[in-house]
């Protein structure tokens, strides 16, 4: 197996080096990827067409919004998949091998207090990241991951059950689903208003402002949807993995 692995690696590496000989230089502004109308259009026209200064957000949520919707679905799928694989409903099923027993300690005062102080700030920052994604780096994914991380921190500092009092399992899944429904809702709304799927331009009928504003505001809406899903699923994955699917104790 080791030899086979090495062989695969060598062949692949050789091929990649072959390919690499023909690359444009690193940072070359005249390389096809940089000079083709596609990327140039995004750079020069994004603000004119969507009034969002952060091109990455605009391309993510508008031009390639279809991709991003499925990216959210990938996250959702992972959450459902992990529940499907690991989750043990009820308590009658015993694994063949004894579980790893984790020594359970009392929550440490320093850790607990620090977390109590930190978690609101983290959550606040997460909201800022989501809301300010139009103007600075950030957006639904980053904000969602940070928000989810705050719950993970809570579960780490106390234990999983404590965290689950705040975010019970079924509510978490509902939140994840609602996130995707928000995203797809913008698409379906534009379908119903006579445009193509995710064509935010036609949403001027229900969103105040002109076409650009409709684009900009819809992007904010879908980012919030993404943030919901990512927050929920990140915590859901963590709680499944850390409790071996029993949703108790945690690590």
């Amino acid at each position, binding site marked *: 197996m*080791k030899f*086979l*692995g090495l062989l*695969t*690696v060598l062949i692949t*590496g050789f091929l*990649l*080096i072959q390919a*690499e000989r023909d*690359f444009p230089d*690193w940072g*070359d*502004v005249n390389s096809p*990827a940089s000079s*083709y109308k*596609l*990327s140039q259009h*995004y*750079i*020069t*026209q994004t*603000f*004119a*067409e969507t*009034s969002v*200064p*952060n*091109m*990455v957000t605009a*391309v*993510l949520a508008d031009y*390639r919004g279809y991709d991003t919707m499925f*990216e959210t679905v990938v*996250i959702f799928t*992972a959450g459902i*998949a*992990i529940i499907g*694989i*690991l989750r043990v409903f009820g308590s009658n099923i015993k694994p*063949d*091998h004894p579980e790893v027993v984790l020594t359970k300690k009392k929550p440490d005062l320093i850790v607990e207090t620090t977390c109590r102080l930190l978690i609101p700030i983290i959550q606040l920052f997460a*909201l*800022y990241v989501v*809301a*300010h994604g139009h*103007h*600075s*780096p950030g957006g639904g*994914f980053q904000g969602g991951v940070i928000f989810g991380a705050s719950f993970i921190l809570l579960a780490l500092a106390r234990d999983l059950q404590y965290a689950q009092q705040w975010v019970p399992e079924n509510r978490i899944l509902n939140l994840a689903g609602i996130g995707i429904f928000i995203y797809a809702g913008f698409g379906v709304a534009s379908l119903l208003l006579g445009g193509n799927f995710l064509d935010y331009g036609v949403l001027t009928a229900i969103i105040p*402002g*002109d076409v*650009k*504003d409709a684009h*900009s*505001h819809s992007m*904010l809406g879908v980012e*919030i949807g993404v943030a919901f899903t990512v927050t929920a699923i990140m915590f859901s994955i963590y709680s*499944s*993995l850390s409790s*071996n699917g029993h949703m108790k104790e945690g690590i």
Partner: protein
Amino acid sequence: MVAIEALADKFNYWVYIVIMMIGLYAMVSKNNLIKKLIGMSVFQTAIILFYVSIGYKDEATIPILYHDQVHGAHHAEEGDHSDEGAHHDETHAMEAIAKEATHHGNDHAVDADHAEVDEHEADHVIDAHVMHNESDHAFEAGHGGLDIDPNQFENPLVHVLMLTAIVVGVATLGVGLAITQKLYGEFGTIEEHEIIEQLRTGND
């Protein structure tokens, strides 16, 4: 000397190949399942490094427009967020966002200086919907009222693609870890050869 320059010109591209091969080797030949998954993550990040390297341009900046480039249209929001710091409930956040949205809309309406420009932009949007096919917008830089040199900004497209790839990577890692835990529950080990050994000797 020429060789070194050639190496330096494409140094990123060399490094990504090396990292990718490390990851691939781990995926194919490691025995430990978690090691395989770490190898998988390394492998995927190497590809992301490759994509990000495509988007890099010498002397270009991050793909976010400056404030003076957008005619100061968005100054108002900067102040807002610090004020909204007190709320950290989700409903409040929604309100805050809605507030920002109204601000955003007002800015365009109120800002008389740029009303003309805005109108022009709006027209352009409608144009753009119809005419993307025929016209090559690359040569119309500045037509939308903004004077932007495309070489000044990095390629945003690859960044978008790689955001997706990172998310896919973490999703795959999560599923892989879940399967690992299930295997551990059933076999009591996370070494692949021990699992195969158990399957061979067992009467399953």
